[in-house]
């Protein structure tokens, strides 16, 4: 793959969260138990791409998003932004400067805006922290522009309001405006529309799609809504218990899933058509604990095809075709 075309490269990214134990247990046990949130994942995100990270709760997708922006430090692995290893950058200066190019949008439109700050201050915050404007007028210009891009017009109507005076959809637009006021190149969107009503959801989703072309940026779109991921993303990666199960173009992964987990996931997604005939969901049980993940392939405890090798060896993520990856012994055996 051409290097200029890749914005984000994650290689063997791992994050283990240590668990706080009681004082007595720390004396007795030999090693600290950890939550295996993200385990050795690798993927690329191209320029002007809408990349989806799909999975159920606890699969590690949210942690991955935060790792890419270095809001949490990984336990091991590498992250490259436009070829630059961001983990080697000193936090105080270079990393802080780099944050102009990498931003995040959160799920909860109520929590991601400081209720005591005006809309103006909220959107102006990145500008002020990064000191990219010299005068207050310049700050005001940038804020007004950001509001206009998000279709919150006229900007003066919104600048002096407070978050509680806006609807959920409007708040989310403000959050996106804040993320885009510095014209970033890469944005992590963590379930940005899941708390919005259906009719508002699509508006905000379409807004984000339009920003890709306008700002020439890439999105990492984290979601559990597979149907929406199909609609919005060029490529998606499906995560399960900290690992990538499958990755590829969204249409192919969703319509012709390779990994048994993806199959089960797709089969379980409801569709708004009462006449559609669906295959049955055959997997039972619950997601195992991330503190003690199963040995071998992590899905083996629930997989309908599990063989012996699945219980012993972890399948590596291999490339089946151009832009199609899967981690399953069904395909490595051959």
């Amino acid at each position, binding site marked *: 793959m051409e290097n200029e075309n890749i914005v984000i490269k994650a290689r063997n990214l791992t994050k283990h969260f240590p668990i706080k134990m009681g004082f007595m247990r720390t004396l007795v046990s030999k090693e600290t138990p950890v939550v295996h949130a993200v385990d050795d994942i690798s993927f690329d995100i191209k320029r002007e791409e809408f990349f989806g990270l799909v999975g159920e709760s606890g699969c590690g997708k949210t942690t991955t998003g935060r790792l890419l922006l270095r809001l949490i430090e990984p336990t091991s692995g590498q992250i490259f932004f436009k070829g630059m290893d961001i983990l080697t950058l000193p936090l105080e200066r270079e990393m802080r400067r780099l944050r102009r190019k990498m931003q995040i949008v*959160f799920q909860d439109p109520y929590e991601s805006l400081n209720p005591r700050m005006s809309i103006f201050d909220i959107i102006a915050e990145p500008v002020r*922290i990064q000191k990219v404007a010299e005068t207050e007028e310049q700050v005001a210009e940038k804020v007004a522009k950001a509001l206009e891009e998000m279709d919150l017009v006229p900007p003066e109507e919104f*600048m002096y309001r*407070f978050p509680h005076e806006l609807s959920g959809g409007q708040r989310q637009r403000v959050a996106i405006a*804040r993320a885009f006021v510095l014209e970033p190149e890469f944005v992590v969107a963590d379930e940005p529309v899941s708390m919005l009503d259906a009719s508002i959801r699509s508006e905000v989703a379409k807004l984000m799609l339009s920003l890709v072309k306008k700002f020439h940026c890439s999105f990492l779109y984290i979601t559990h809504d597979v149907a929406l991921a199909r609609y919005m993303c060029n490529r998606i990666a499906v995560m399960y218990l900290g690992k990538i199960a499958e990755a590829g173009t969204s249409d192919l992964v969703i319509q012709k899933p390779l990994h048994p987990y993806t199959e089960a996931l797709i089969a379980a997604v409801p569709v708004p058509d009462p006449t559609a005939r669906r295959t049955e969901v055959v997997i039972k049980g619950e997601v195992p604990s991330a503190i003690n993940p199963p040995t071998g392939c992590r899905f083996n405890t629930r997989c309908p095809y599990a063989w012996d090798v699945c219980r012993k060896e972890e399948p590596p993520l291999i490339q089946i075709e151009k832009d199609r990856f899967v981690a399953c012994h069904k395909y490595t055996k051959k």
Partner: protein
Amino acid sequence: MSIFSKEGRKILSRRLSGFWDEYKRTKVGIAGAIILIIFGGLAIFAPLLTPYDPIISKRLAESFAQPQWVTILPHNKDLPPTQDIQLYWTAQEESPVPIEWGKRVALRFEAATTKQIDIRLAYNFTYKYLPPLSFNLKFTLNAENVTDMTYLLESNLINPKGDQLNLWRHSGQADAYRLIEIQSTEYWWMSARGYEPGVDNVAQIWFAQQGQYTVTFIISLMPKTTTSKMNLKIEDSTFNIPGLIHGILGADNEGRDIFSQLVWGSRISLAIGLLSAVIATSLGVIIGVLAGYVGGAVDEIIMRIVDILIALPVLPLLLALVFLFGPNVIYIIVLIAIFGWQGLSRVIRSQILTLREASFVECARASGASKTYVMFKHLVPNVLPIAFASLVLSVPGAILTEAALSFLGFGDPRAATWGKMLQSAFGFGAFSNLAWWWILPPGLAITLVCLAFVFIGHAVDNIVNPKLRRRR
């Protein structure tokens, strides 16, 4: 965003008007605000509202004089108010010697003969009340250039029946400059006139009737030679009858105006209460933010200190500390504050712990914010509303603690607070004299002011505390 920019002012005004909109809907909030405005007004305009000095002006009325408005009740109708009768002497007949009379009596006597000259001055007034408990006569006597003569001065009181009581008598042959004051309750004065001190009450006997009373001043000049002369001045003569009713709130045991005490006391009680509360709240916020944001060992240490302090008994400790350091207003304020920040620090700390994890904090960090930026721009502003509510709610406690200290005698003796009023009332016999007008006002004032702050704090808390917000 600075409040000096146009945007800043607009945002500030929206914030304030939003708050006021909600506040004015609460009934208790308005009630509290009204009470506070009243007492605040009393405190601020104290010099304008009180004609008397609360501590210095004594004997404005009889001890334990009741408030003036008790005359509404029929059996109190004729209680006498304080009468400060200025004696404008008038001559009864044509005076043989040129004499200037009025407020100031002045005469220059140059003897032509050795005949005795008598001058009689008098002043009439009406007394239409119940008998008072005492009266007194004051004037300045100035006899100058007395040469070769004797003078005899005398003052009497004549009641409506015509009976005469001698008030004062003096004969002299030399210069004299004296301030004369006679009290109807004074031991020697009473016994010289045949009354038994402690048993009889001269005022009650002599003012038993309502009607016309006369005070006379008789000057007898007895020259020895034809060159005898003297100058005599009698000035500032007043006949004072301390009333049994006085002012808006009556008088204390020394005849001081209680209303003045109450009004001036409001200044210092409110000041002490507010200052202590402000110091305590500031401490609580700073320590709470530190513990919550820095975390780790610092957090643990601070919280254990808080635990210990909370377990200590406040009032006994305060008494001991005031005893140690001395009853100075500054020390009292600081000490009350030292015992008042612990609860708030815990609340602030837990708020900070929650806020630390909020998405908007993460967004700020994602934009490159430093830890200090997050603390001052995001965390502290979000806990300020709770701190403000706590500030308002802790004022009553501070006021009550100070009142308790003063009542127990540990207050600053120079500070005339409501607590001190209660202490004086208790110590000087208000209870045994049933002087409710001395006991109730400070007690009620403390109660009302504390209630006002509780109401206001409650209303503010309902608005700013995210958990208590009503559904809009």
